[in-house]
């Protein structure tokens, strides 16, 4: 009898400690990066994987259009940061990895022209490598793997200009232009100074490289314009004046796009919309599923991720009740899961990346203590993501 009890106890203890151990190499985290200066307001712009290790580089704006770089490790721990000198302002929200070097595009506050800076991750500094005098007020940069494209909207010009930059990154080799037909200087200045509405400017090429989808001011509206590979106008999905329209797009190929658009005060998602790059149509007429809880004034992000070997589209946006909403769709466009992240404090999605370890890393702006806008990062581990799609 006594021996049975002993064996029972021993079995119980061994059983407890022999349970399958989950993978601890990928643990989720939430980090907010502090700054004692309460007057300083950060607007995270872009995040990309570092080239020297497994960490991430974060580009942010602070105090209006000043530029801040920060490096964190793969677990979100702060490593170093750098405030760029005042001669560089208005960083466009794209950290570019060109031939295993990180670059950022910004502007000279006096000359108002574009500067391309190389980030020296080892020595924690930046080096200006070129000045593009003909590109004034840059608002976006896009590298498609072979060429760098810049979007600018010079003040008083009433034009949006797309510039293809040479491989040496020092001259403009091709230009495409759009007429805005109205003065948007006030909107543009508020955008670059981070004092007003942040417009979702973007350039995205299709997987076939036959078209560029360009979100920009065009023809009295903020619209999605298609350019062909020669930067010639092809078609447009017009926004509703300066407010409604497409605010995020992810090209899937064969003229299919995952997109987020706004109309009135609502946000709509479509994980698989067929768009005609030669059409002239209204963006607000693109069929999409609305979500009334989402905040139409904050960014929406779309990324393709892979969970358990299957591809999913991740849509990330902010709710009106201060939460992040992550929605996952499978390849057919079927919604698999919608989940909430964070609570109770104003939070905006700024960028996201799918890590080499199968994790989803999100760059956010968090307003802590109800007062201070700070850079934040949130990581969902591989097992978090697997659990999300398990409900399938």
């Amino acid at each position, binding site marked *: 009898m006594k021996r049975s009890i002993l064996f029972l*106890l021993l079995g*119980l*203890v061994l059983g*407890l400690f022999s349970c399958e151990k*989950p993978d*601890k190499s990928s*643990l*989720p*985290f*939430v*980090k*907010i*990066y*502090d*700054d*004692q*200066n*309460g*007057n300083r307001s950060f607007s995270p712009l872009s995040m990309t994987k570092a080239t020297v290790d497994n960490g991430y580089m974060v580009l942010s704006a602070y105090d209006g259009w000043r530029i801040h770089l*920060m490096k*964190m490790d793969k677990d*979100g*721990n*702060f490593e170093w*940061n750098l405030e760029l000198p005042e001669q560089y302002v208005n960083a466009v929200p794209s950290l570019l990895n060109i031939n295993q070097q990180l670059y950022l595009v910004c502007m000279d506050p006096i000359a108002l022209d574009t500067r391309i800076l190389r980030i020296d991750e080892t020595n924690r500094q930046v080096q200006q490598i070129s000045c593009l005098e003909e590109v004034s007020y840059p608002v976006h940069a896009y590298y498609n793997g072979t060429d760098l494209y810049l979007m600018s909207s010079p003040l008083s010009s009433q034009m949006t200009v797309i510039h293809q930059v040479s491989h040496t990154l020092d001259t403009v080799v091709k230009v495409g232009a759009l007429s805005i037909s109205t003065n948007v200087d006030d909107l543009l200045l508020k955008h670059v100074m981070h004092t007003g509405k942040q417009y979702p400017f973007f350039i995205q090429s299709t997987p076939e490289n036959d078209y560029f989808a360009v979100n920009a001011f065009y023809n009295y509206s903020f619209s999605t314009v298609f350019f062909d590979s020669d930067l010639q106008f092809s078609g447009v999905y017009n926004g509703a004046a300066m407010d409604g329209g497409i605010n995020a797009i992810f090209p899937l190929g064969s003229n299919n796009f995952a997109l987020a658009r706004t109309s009135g005060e609502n946000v709509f998602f479509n994980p698989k919309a067929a768009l005609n790059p030669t059409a002239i149509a209204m963006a607000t007429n693109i069929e999409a599923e609305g979500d009334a809880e989402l905040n139409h004034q904050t960014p929406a992000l779309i990324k393709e991720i892979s969970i358990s070997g299957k591809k999913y589209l991740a849509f990330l946006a902010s709710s009106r009740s201060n939460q992040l909403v992550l929605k996952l769709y499978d390849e057919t466009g079927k919604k698999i899961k919608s989940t909430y*992240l*964070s*609570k*109770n*404090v104003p*939070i905006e999605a700024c960028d996201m990346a799918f890590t080499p370890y199968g994790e989803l890393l999100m760059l956010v702006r*968090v307003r*802590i*203590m109800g*007062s*201070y806008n700070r850079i*934040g990062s*949130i990581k969902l*581990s591989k*097992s*978090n993501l697997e659990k999300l799609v398990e409900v399938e």
Partner: protein
Amino acid sequence: MRTFWGLLAAIFVMQGVHAQSRKHQYRKDRYFFGINIGTGFTQPVVDERFSLLEPTPQSAKEDYDKQYGNLFQNGGGVYGLHASFAFTPQFSVITQPCFQTQRYSYMNSYHWSDTIMGGEVYKEFLHRQKISSVRIPVLLRFDFSRLRFSPFLQTGISADIAYFASKQVFSDNYIDKDVDRKTATSSSVAEFTPHLNRFNVAVLGGGGISYYREHLAFSLSGTLSYNLRTSINEFNRYADYTGMATEYLDVQDKFNLLSLNILATVMVPLHKKW
């Protein structure tokens, strides 16, 4: 050194009692059943610190480590049942399944300079957590005596099953290592259970004294326990179930709980002779 001499004296006294006890046997019964009630004190033993707010060179502080209170600042309650079986009059196995409430608290503080809000902004937070669990211990007890009064030592393991946990945060605007709960601003009480490792195993050890009567026995014991598993589920550490993570910049450290339970037990013997 004083501890050593004290321990030596206690061993001599116990040996004396033990020698005397062979002459006067009061413990004639093998089975005892009873109830117990007591108080418990809890202390987190921190293994790894975590902070939601990541210090940078521009921060006011180099780290945001939490300041934990000491063992006796974290009081809780225990009540349950008692059952024991004596292999010999001095050597018995006991179990004391009980409901227990463990509390632990910590403080942290933050500081920003803000000319818009009129200068310096100070925030000090007191985080109070309460864990309710069922504890099922199995202890081996050695009595030093067969007299009416019998000092004893006991050791064993227990299974702890946490069934509910809650958390509340108190804050004020002064960094003075004191947040007065009566005057501080408080959050609502939020459920904290999903952040826990619900099942834990603890090792226990302690001692006490028993008093035996013909039809009744009493004991007063003190037992230290140490949870072998960490209390916080590391996969849910940053999951904001309470809604307090980003609002109060709070994330739990990695720690194991150390507890001291002081129990008063009333037992009745089953009159079954040796």
